[in-house]
């Protein structure tokens, strides 16, 4: 597998949207913890993925979720924000000797410290955007912040669980032939 956008990602797109709409849509912990697992699609894209396409894909997946959630534009705006911030966060988290060609967003390859700070930072920004765009006021500031923090934890943990379950610990082999 290389770093281009392939069939795997298209399948992932539909899988994550289905997971979000059919399963997570009905799930809320204590009325404050929501799981927006579809952001995992954007998080798992290859490291040197084109910024423009990342933004467009962010808009697409956010928009798709919006259509099902009847929250026109809110998830799209938050996902585009996440897509915009992703390259910057990746730059900040660059390992000492830069990214290898074989590096992927994989908790086994990049280490748990790198992965957790990468995933939780981006999820936090995304959820802040979602919940504040939803209320558009500061009247319920603490409630909104509580929702954001709890939901970030919830989504983040699910993102990590998916990594541990479905991503192989082996570094992907590069064929030099």
């Amino acid at each position, binding site marked *: 597998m290389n770093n281009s956008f392939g069939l795997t990602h298209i399948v992932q797109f539909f899988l994550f949207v289905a997971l979000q709409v059919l399963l997570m849509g009905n799930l809320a912990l204590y*009325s404050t913890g929501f799981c927006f697992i579809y952001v995992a699609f954007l998080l798992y894209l290859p490291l040197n993925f084109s910024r423009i396409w990342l933004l467009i894909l962010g808009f697409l997946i956010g928009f798709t979720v919006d259509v099902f959630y009847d929250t026109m*534009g809110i998830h799209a705006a938050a996902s585009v924000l996440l897509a*915009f911030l992703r390259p910057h966060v990746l730059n900040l988290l660059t390992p000492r000797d830069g990214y290898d060609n074989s590096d992927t967003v994989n908790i086994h390859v990049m280490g748990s410290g790198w992965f957790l700070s990468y995933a939780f930072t981006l999820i936090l920004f995304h959820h802040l955007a979602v919940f504040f765009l939803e209320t558009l006021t500061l009247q319920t500031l603490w409630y909104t912040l509580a929702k954001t923090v709890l939901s970030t934890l919830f989504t983040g943990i699910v993102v990590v669980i998916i990594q541990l379950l479905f991503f192989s610990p082996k570094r992907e082999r590069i064929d030099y032939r």
Partner: protein
Amino acid sequence: MRNLFAFIYRFRAFLVFLLLEALCVFLIVRYNTYQGAAFFNSANRYVGQVLEFQSGITDYFRLTNINQSLASENAALRQELMQYRQAALIDSAAELDTTYVPASDTTAAPPYNLMAGHVINNSVRRLNNYLTIARGTADGVQPGMGVISPEGVVGRVKTVSEHYSTVTSLLHSQMLVSAKIKKDNTFGTIKWQGGDYRTAMLEYIPLHVKPEKGDTIVTSGFNTVFPEGITVGTISSVEQEPDKSFYTIAVKLSVDFAQLSYVYVVENTRKEERDTLELDAGILPDEQ
């Protein structure tokens, strides 16, 4: 000119970001208005089909509850029907109906029609909650119609496609329902504040009336959306705050929104006539 293109190329990611965010803001402003009509929502045909498929599966797990609520509603309706039958048996004047009442008398026609609809999508835990029901323009549903369940008020139709419609739930931050306290007809406004989906607030009840815990709240019928006397809930707490000229009243909603399966869309056959009259008279509809 070349410099300009170079500039644009250099900041292309940021510019695309700004463009997409502007589009999102436009969408939010354009389509998230309370009564805005929209194409891209869960009333869309394809989205509706997915949601119907989902609810087809999840409904199996709730069959017992759905059956129970339908059976108890049947029982209540049958009881009511029996009362009418008995009243009709006693009423000997019924046979003289056409003698005294002209056959074309339209006052005898019921002004409200009910259409049963299956809830295929529902939320209770967001700040602005919506339902999707499997009834659309093909069945006569129009935007603005009221939606009730056997237990009480549910919401108001927002957008309609051919076979599906989205309903603004009572659990929506901008949904207002004109209601009154049943025992003394004092009217106020029901508004949901977010948080607990079983509790809403009754606002604008002046201090000279004496609402008590347990009083029933029903719709006022001051508008064309809901018929008069549909249950909203019962008062669960009454507080009088020192700096306010109205009571702070919490109402326990009679409808359990998390358990909705079948609802009724209310069609007011004289809505248009009444709305036009009120509009012509200069009365603006300030709430639902």
